[in-house]
C-alpha cells in the first residue's frame, strides 16, 4: 500500500511538471527557478491550510470553519498590532496559534463530547466565527497604514534567499511529515480513518484523537490568519470568504480520500501547488483570470475520478464481491 501511495504522488508530481512544461511553451520565463520559488511562496498559505485540513479529513471528519477561523484570528492579530505596535511578531504568532487553537478546540469538543457530525458543527462555526469577526471589528477594516512595518515585513524578509513565508511553509510541512509518519498520533489518525471500530479495539481513543485533529486544524487556521493578513495587508470580515472549499479542493486534488484513511503530506502539498500554479499561470499566458474557477473545478472532478479508480483496486475485496453477487 505504501508503494501504491508513492505511485499516486509521483503521478501528481508528473502532472505538475507537464503543466509547468505546457505553460512555459507559451511563456518560457515561467519555469525559471526564481519564478517557481515565487509560485511556491504564493502557495505557502494554501499548503499550510491543506495540511491542517488533511489531518481532519483523514479521520473521516471535515473542518469547514478553517477560513472563518483564519478571518477571525487575522482580525485579532491585526487589531492587536494596530493598538500595540510594540508587541513583537513572534509573540503575535504565538497569539495567533493560541486563538486558532481555541476556535479549533470548540469544534473538537462539540465533535468529541456531543458526537455531533463534524460537518454540522463546522457549518455552524463557519458562520459564527465570521460573524464574531464582524462584532469584534464593528465592520471596520484594518488597513496597511495601521499595521507596523514589522508586521508586514516579517514574512517578506529573505533568509538564505528565500522569504520567511516559504520557510514557515517548509517548517510546517516538515512538522506534519514527522507527525504523520513518525508518531503514534499520526498512526492513530490513519487508523481511525481506515476503520474506526477496529481503532477502538486497539485502544485508540477515537473521540479524543478527533478533538486533537480539530485543535491542529484550528492552530493552522490561526497561523494562516496572521500570514494571510500580513501578506494581503488588509483585515476585514470578507477575508478568505469561501476559501474553505479551496482548501478541501487542494486536499482532494492531492489524493486525500474524503472517506478517510488515505492521503499523505506530499499529496496535500502537491495538490495545493497544483492550484497555486494554475492561478499564477493564467495571467502570464493571457487567459482571463475568470477561467480559474472552472479550471480548478474540472481539476477536482478529474482528480476524484482518477483517485476513485486507484482506491477501488485496493482492499475491501470481500465486500466488493458480495456487492456484485
Amino acid at each position: 500500500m505504501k508503494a501504491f501511495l508513492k505511485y499516486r504522488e509521483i503521478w501528481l508530481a508528473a502532472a505538475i511538471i507537464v503543466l509547468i512544461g505546457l505553460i512555459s511553451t507559451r511563456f518560457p520565463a515561467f519555469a525559471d527557478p526564481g519564478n517557481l520559488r515565487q509560485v511556491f511562496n504564493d502557495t505557502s498559505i494554501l499548503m499550510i491550510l491543506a495540511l491542517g485540513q488533511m489531518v481532519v479529513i483523514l479521520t473521516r471528519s471535515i473542518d469547514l470553519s478553517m477560513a472563518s477561523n483564519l478571518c477571525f484570528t487575522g482580525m485579532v492579530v491585526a487589531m492587536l498590532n494596530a493598538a500595540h505596535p510594540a508587541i513583537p511578531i513572534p509573540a503575535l504568532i504565538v497569539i495567533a496559534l493560541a486563538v486558532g487553537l481555541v476556535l479549533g478546540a470548540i469544534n473538537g469538543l462539540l465533535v468529541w463530547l456531543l458526537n455531533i457530525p463534524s460537518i454540522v458543527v463546522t457549518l455552524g462555526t463557519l458562520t459564527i466565527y465570521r460573524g464574531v469577526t464582524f462584532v469584534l471589528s464593528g465592520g471596520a477594516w484594518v488597513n496597511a497604514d495601521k499595521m507596523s512595518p514589522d508586521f508586514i515585513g516579517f514574512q517578506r524578509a529573505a533568509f538564505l534567499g528565500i522569504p520567511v513565508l516559504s520557510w514557515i511553509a517548509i517548517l510546517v510541512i516538515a512538522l506534519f511529515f514527522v507527525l504523520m509518519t513518525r508518531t503514534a498520533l499520526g498512526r492513530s489518525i490513519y487508523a481511525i480513518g481506515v476503520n474506526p471500530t477496529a481503532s477502538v479495539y486497539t485502544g485508540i481513543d477515537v473521540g479524543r484523537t478527533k478533538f486533537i485533529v480539530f485543535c491542529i486544524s484550528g492552530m493552522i487556521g490561526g497561523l494562516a490568519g496572521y500570514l494571510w493578513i500580513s501578506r494581503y495587508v488588509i483585515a476585514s470580515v470578507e477575508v478568505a470568504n469561501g476559501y474553505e472549499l479551496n482548501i478541501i479542493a487542494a486536499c482532494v486534488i492531492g489524493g486525500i480520500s474524503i472517506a478517510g484513511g488515505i492521503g499523505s503530506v506530499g499529496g496535500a502539498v502537491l495538490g495545493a501547488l497544483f492550484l497555486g500554479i494554475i492561478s499564477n499561470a493564467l495571467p502570464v499566458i493571457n487567459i482571463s483570470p475568470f477561467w480559474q474557477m472552472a479550471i480548478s473545478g474540472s481539476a477536482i472532478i478529474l482528480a476524484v475520478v482518477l483517485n476513485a479508480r486507484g482506491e477501488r483496486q485496493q482492499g475491501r475485496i470481500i465486500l466488493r464481491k458480495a456487492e456484485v453477487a
Partner: protein
Amino acid sequence: MTDIPAPRHIPDRLDKPFRSAIFSWEALLIVVAVAIFAINSFASPYFLDPYSLSDLTFNFTEKGLIAFAMALLIISGEIDLSVAAIIALASTMMGMAVQAGAGTPVLVLIGIVVGLGCGAFNGLLVTRLGLPSIVVTIGTMSLFRGIAFIILGDQAYKGYPESFAFFGQGYVWWVVSFELVLFLIAAVVYWFLLHRTSFGRRVFAIGNNPVAAQFSGVRVGRIKFILFCLTGLMSGIASVLITSRLGSTRPSIAQGYELEVITMVVLGGVSILGGAGSIVGVVLAAFIMGLVTFGLGLLNVPGIVMSIFIGVLLIIVIALPIVWRRLRGSS
C-alpha cells in the same frame, strides 16, 4: 465515539403515540418558531403587519424550494454543494437568452432545463462512477460558477422583460406572493413524495442501509440519480425566481446559498448521516430561519450578525436532544 451509525429504526411514519409526538423534533421546532415569533412581535412594532410578514417570506422561499429536494438527497445519504452554482449558471444562461431576444416562457424553460441538466451531470458522476457526492459537488460547484464567470466576467446581464418580473416580485392574492404559493405547493408535493409513496420509502431505505436496499431490489443508483436531478431542477426554479426578483444576473449571484440550504435541512431534523428526516421539519426550519433573519433585520442587526444566530441555533438545536438524552440516561 465513532462515526459508525448505530443500529437505527426508520423513524418516519411508525405508529406514533401521542406522547412521542409531543417530544418530537417538529414539536421542538414549533416551540422555537413560536418563541421567535413572539419575541419579534414584542421587539419591533413593525413586525405584526401583513406587509411585513409578506416580505418576511422572501427570506426563505427560494432557499426553501431547494431545501425540499436537498432533504431527500441528504436522507438518501448524499449531498449537493453545487446548488448555488447551478443558480448562477442557470441565471447566466437566461441572461444570454435575453440578449438574444428570448421571451418570458423561453427564459423560464431555459432556467429549469439548465438546472435539470446540471443536476443530471452531478447524478451521473456520483452514480455511474461511484464517486463521493461531497467531493463531486465541490468540483461542479467551482465548474458551474466558473462557467458563469467565464461568460460574464465582471459584467452583468440586465434587461429582463417586464412579464418576467412576476415570478420573483408578483403577488397571487393580496399579500400572498407567487414565491410563497410555489413554496407551499412544493412543500405538499415533496411531503407526499417522501412520506406517502413507495419512492419515499426507498429513499429512507437507501439512507439507512444502501447495501440492504440494493439486495431488497431497490435500484439505488437510479433513485439517487433522480434525487440529484430533482435538486438540480429545484435550483433551476429557484434561479428563475431570484433572477426575476433581482432583475439582473451577476456571476456571484446566490453566493453561499448552499450552506444556508443545508443548514435549513439539518435544522429541520434531517440526519446529515442519512436515513431520517421529514418535510414538515424542513418547512418549520425554513420559517424559523426566515423569522430570525427578518426579525433581526427589523431591529437593524446587520446580516453577518444574524448568521451568528443561525449558526448558534443550528448547533444548539442539534446538541439539545443529545444533551437531553445523556442527562436522562445518566439519572
